[in-house]
C-alpha cells in the first residue's frame, strides 16, 4: 500500500474532501458576511441563525408541502432573503447613524430569538433530510471514493462564490455597490436609491446563508443549533481574510477548511482550534487580515 507520510491516502484524501466541503460552507457564509459588512458596516450575528433557517425551510417544504431539494434550493434562499429585507427595513436601518457595534448587538438578539424559537419548536435533535435522487451514489476515483452530493456541494458553492465575486468586482451593478460603500451620499446624489440597494444587499447576503443551509441539509442534520458553532468559525475566517474583502472571504474559507481537514489527519486534537490559532498568528503579523486594507 502506498502511503503519504505514514497516512493511508484514503484517509488523507477523505479528510481533505471533508475539509473542502466545510471550506465551501465557510466560504459561502463568510462571503455573505463580507458583502453585508462591506455595504452596511454591520457584522451580521444572525448569519448562522439564518443559515439554520434556510435548512429548516428546506425541511419544512419537504415535510409539509412535498417540495423537494431542487425546489427548496430556489425557495429557501428567497424566503430567507425576504426575511432579511424585512429585518433590515424595520430594525437595522434605524441604527446606521449610531456606532456600528449596535448593529452587531441587534443581530445578536435576532440570532437568539431565531435559534431559541426553533429550538423551542423542534428540540435539539436533528431532522434528517434525504439526498436528492439525482445526486445519490458516488464515483470511484481510484484513490478515493467521492460521494456525488459532496462533489456537487463543492462545485455549486465555488460557482456561487465566483459568480458573486464577478458581479461585485466586474459589473456595473457591483461598481455602484462599491461606490456606495465608499460614499453613499455622493452615489445617492447621482440618482441611485442607496437605501433600497442596502436592503437588497442585506437580503442577498442572508439569502447566500439560506442557500448554504439548503446545501448543508442533506450532509448535516437539520438542527436549530447547526448555525451556532459554525458562525464563530466563520467570523474567524472573515477576520483572517480581512473584513469586507470578497476574495479574502472565499480564499480563506476554502483554505481554512482544507487546513482543518489536514489537521484532523495529523493532529486531531487541534482540529477545533487550528482556525483560531491561525487567526491569532495572522493578526499579530497583519492586523488587517490577509486581504484587508488598513484603516
Amino acid at each position, binding site marked *: 500500500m502506498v502511503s503519504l507520510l505514514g497516512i493511508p491516502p484514503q484517509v488523507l484524501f477523505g479528510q481533505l474532501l471533508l475539509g473542502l466541503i466545510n471550506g465551501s460552507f465557510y466560504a459561502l457564509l463568510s462571503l455573505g458576511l463580507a458583502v453585508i459588512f462591506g455595504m452596511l458596516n454591520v457584522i451580521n450575528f444572525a448569519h448562522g441563525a439564518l443559515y439554520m433557517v434556510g435548512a429548516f425551510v428546506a425541511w419544512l417544504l419537504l415535510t409539509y408541502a412535498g417540495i423537494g431539494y431542487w425546489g427548496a434550493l430556489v425557495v429557501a434562499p428567497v424566503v430567507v432573503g425576504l426575511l432579511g429585507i424585512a429585518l433590515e427595513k424595520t430594525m437595522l436601518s434605524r441604527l446606521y447613524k449610531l456606532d456600528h457595534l449596535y448593529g452587531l448587538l441587534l443581530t445578536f*438578539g435576532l440570532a*437568539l430569538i431565531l435559534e431559541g424559537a426553533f429550538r423551542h419548536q423542534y428540540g435539539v435533535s436533528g431532522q434528517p433530510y434525504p439526498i436528492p435522487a439525482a445526486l445519490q451514489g458516488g464515483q470511484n476515483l481510484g484513490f478515493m471514493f467521492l460521494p456525488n452530493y459532496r462533489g456537487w456541494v463543492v462545485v455549486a458553492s465555488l460557482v456561487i462564490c465566483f459568480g458573486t465575486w464577478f458581479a461585485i468586482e466586474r459589473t456595473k451593478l457591483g461598481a455602484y455597490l462599491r461606490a456606495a460603500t465608499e460614499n453613499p451620499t455622493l452615489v445617492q446624489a447621482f440618482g441611485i436609491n442607496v437605501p433600497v440597494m442596502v436592503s437588497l444587499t442585506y437580503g442577498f447576503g442572508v439569502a447566500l446563508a439560506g442557500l448554504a443551509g439548503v446545501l448543508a441539509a442533506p450532509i448535516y442534520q437539520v438542527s436549530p443549533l447547526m448555525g451556532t458553532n459554525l458562525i464563530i468559525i466563520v*467570523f474567524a475566517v472573515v477576520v483572517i481574510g480581512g473584513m469586507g474583502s470578497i476574495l479574502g472571504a472565499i480564499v480563506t474559507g476554502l483554505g481554512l477548511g482544507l487546513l482543518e481537514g489536514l489537521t484532523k489527519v495529523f493532529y486531531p486534537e487541534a482540529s477545533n482550534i487550528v482556525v483560531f*490559532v491561525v487567526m491569532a498568528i495572522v493578526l499579530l503579523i497583519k*492586523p488587517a487580515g490577509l486581504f484587508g486594507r488598513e484603516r
Partner: protein
Amino acid sequence: MTVASNSTRVAVRGPAIGTMLIAAVLLLLALAAPFVLYPVFLMKVLCFALFACAFNLLIGFAGLLSFGHAAFFGGAAYVAAHVVKEWGWAPEAGLLAATVVAGLMGLVFGLIAIRRQGIYFAMITLALSQMVFFLALQLPFTHGEDGIQGVPRGLLFGLFDLSQPLTMYYAVLAIFVAGFALIWRTVHSPFGQVLKAIRENEPRAVSLGYRTDRYKLVAFVLSASLAGLAGGTKALVFQLASLTDVTWQMSGEVVLMTLLGGMGTLFGPVVGAGLVVTLESYLASTSLPVPVVIGCIFVVCVLLFRRGIVGELMARLPKRGH
C-alpha cells in the same frame, strides 16, 4: 499638578456624595437581603453583577466591546474549581489563582486584539474566547461535558466555614464590594479619565501624548481579572465549573446585562445583572423559551433604550454637572 487634581476632585464631589448615599443604602439592603430572599439566588446575582461591572469597565469607560469575556469568567471558574478540588488549596488561594490566570489570559487576548477597534476588536475577542471554549471542551482537567463537580467550599482564611449559606453569602458580598470599589476607584482616577478620553476621541488622546494602546491594555487586563474573580466565586458558590460559563452565549449575556442596566454607569450593570438573573429564574418555571425572551429584550434595548435603565434615569434627572 496638585492644583489640577484638587480642582477635579471639587468638580467630582457634588454628584459623588449622592452616589455614596445610594451605595450606602444599597449595601444595607444587601446585608439584610439573605433574610428575605434565597441566598443562592442572591449570590448568583452578585457574581454576575461583578462580571457585568468588570465588562462595563471596558465598554462603558474605554469604549471597547469585548465579545469574549466568557473566556475569563468560565476559564477562571475552571481554575478555581481545579485548584480547590484537586490540589486542595484554600478558597481564597483558589480565587486568587482564578483572578491571576484570568488576568494573564486577558493580557494575551489584549496583546492580540488591542490594535484593532470597534467591530474588529469584538470579533477577535469572540474568536479567541471560542478557542478557550474548545480547550475547555478537550483538556483533560476540565472533564469535558461534565465539568468539575462537587467543588468543596472550604474554610475561608481557615476561619469561616463557607458551607454555611449565610457565611458564603457575606463572603461573596465582600468580594463583590471589593471588586466594585476597585472599579469605582479606577473610573474616578486619572487613569479612568484617560480611558474616557480614549472612548470619546482616541486620535485626540494620542495627540495629547497618551499611549492609548497601553491604557487600553491595562484596562483590558483589569477587566479580565475581575471577570475571573467573578467566575471563580461562582464556581465556589455553585461548587461547579462547567462549559456553560465559557460559551459565547455567556459573553452575549453579560453584554445584555450591561446594556439593559446602562453602559457607562456604575450601577447599571448591577441592576442589569439582577434583572436578567431574576428573569431567567422566573422564566425557567414557565413554558416560555428563555433565549427568545432574552433576545427580544436585547432587540428592544438596542432599538429603543440604548442608555439602559440607570442611564435613562440619570438622563431624566435634572442638574447633573457632566
